[in-house]
């Protein structure tokens, strides 16, 4: 029973969902299930949050050197959650209102942390290009050449180097052609492959052949 019912649920829900796509009267299935998933996620995040708090409380109690960081995690979490739930006290819903402490925390902490972490990519694209773009073999050479021409074609230098060629035949045009033809073709093969992979995986799930998400055989 512990395994059969979940398998039945997956199969039934998946099958109904697929069928509803072809039957106009079942159009509501999509909206309702989308909402339900959002609701399940909203319940489940309590499990995650409690897990985060538990792990950091444990770290705090072990008395190791970096327990201070565990304390920081807990305090940050509670401060943010506290600020966000404050409207409950006055029966409001505008938790992100301008001027609220939640909005201030978001602007002062969340935005710069997020933007800076994202910006680290500027460094990592540089170091990854240095290591990866070497003409080790035929494949790597193609990778290198495509990247090289597209990169050069996107800064004025590329056109400058090929200034002798007529307008429309300079390096920025090479870059465009690489993007518009071979790049597009490769992308298409990948996307079609993915679609078939997903169709097959979905089918395995609906048929109950793939069941490791509920704990395997």
């Amino acid at each position, binding site marked *: 029973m512990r395994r059969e019912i979940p398998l039945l649920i997956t199969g039934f*829900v998946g099958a109904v969902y697929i069928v509803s796509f072809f039957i106009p009267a079942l159009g509501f299935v999509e909206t309702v299930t989308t909402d*339900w998933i959002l*609701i399940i996620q909203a319940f489940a995040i309590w*499990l995650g949050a409690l897990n985060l708090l538990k792990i950091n409380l444990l770290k705090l109690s072990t008395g190791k050197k970096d327990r201070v960081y565990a304390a920081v995690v807990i*305090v940050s*979490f509670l401060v943010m959650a506290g600020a966000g739930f404050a409207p409950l006290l006055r029966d409001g819903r505008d*938790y992100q209102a301008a001027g609220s402490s*939640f909005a201030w925390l978001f602007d002062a902490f969340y935005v710069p942390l997020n933007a800076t972490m994202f910006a680290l*990519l500027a460094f990592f694209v540089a170091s990854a290009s240095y290591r990866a773009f070497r003409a080790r073999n035929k494949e790597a050479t193609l990778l290198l050449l495509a990247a090289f021409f597209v990169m050069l074609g996107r800064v004025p230098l590329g056109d400058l180097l090929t200034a002798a060629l007529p307008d429309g035949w300079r390096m920025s045009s090479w870059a465009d052609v690489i993007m518009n033809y071979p790049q597009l073709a*490769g992308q298409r093969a990948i996307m079609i492959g993915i679609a078939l992979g997903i169709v097959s995986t979905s089918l395995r799930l609906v048929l109950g052949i793939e069941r490791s998400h509920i704990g395997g055989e």
Partner: protein
Amino acid sequence: MPQLSFADYAAIQVGALLTFGIVSFLYKDNPFYKLCESIFVGLSAGYWFVVLFWENLVPKLYDNLKHALAEPTTATGSLSIEWLYLFALLLGILMLLRLVPKLGWLSRWPLSFVVGATAGLYFITYLQSNALRQLQATLVPILNFTDMASGKGPTSTLNAFFKQYLGNAVILVGTVSGLFYFYFSKEHKGWFGRSARVGIYFLMITFGASFGYTVMSRMSLLIGRIDFLISDWWPALMGGWM
């Protein structure tokens, strides 16, 4: 520089400190980074905890059930569709039973629901938007003789030249050989292997090109942070607050 309020001033200073803290990771792991990391994890977990409550639970569950209680039946006398959300409530509660060791297995029900719905949704959407749309886009004549005969289509630029002559053939060969590479049930030997090889070459050009294409926009993200430090933070540091 106009004088800032204390709240704005403090936000800028905090932002700058956090920026430096995260960037310091590039040199090596250090307590300053660890501090920023811990703040980030705690704060953002709290943020999403709150957002999911206000954006999912309240409008989707609470409001719908409230509506069902207020208007239990529709004008035609049948039960309101909002009553269906009782099932969502049930599934949510089953999820939380994970916290009760003896009843934890019941949380597989909502999980199976999510997995089933996802499988169904992806089956359809990917068949549609990835497979069929992409195949359809590949349906173009290798050479458009009609256009060529009528003298249409300028070939004065490289792009136009490809559009007119080579482009469609490249796309066709690339797409089909790429699919050869993904073929699982045949060993990549002989002519089949050679086709798959061509497919790999196309994939490599694809990866190189899209990598190179992205470099510039990644640089602009960092420019944004540097600009924040130079145009916002430094003047604020010098200017103080009201």
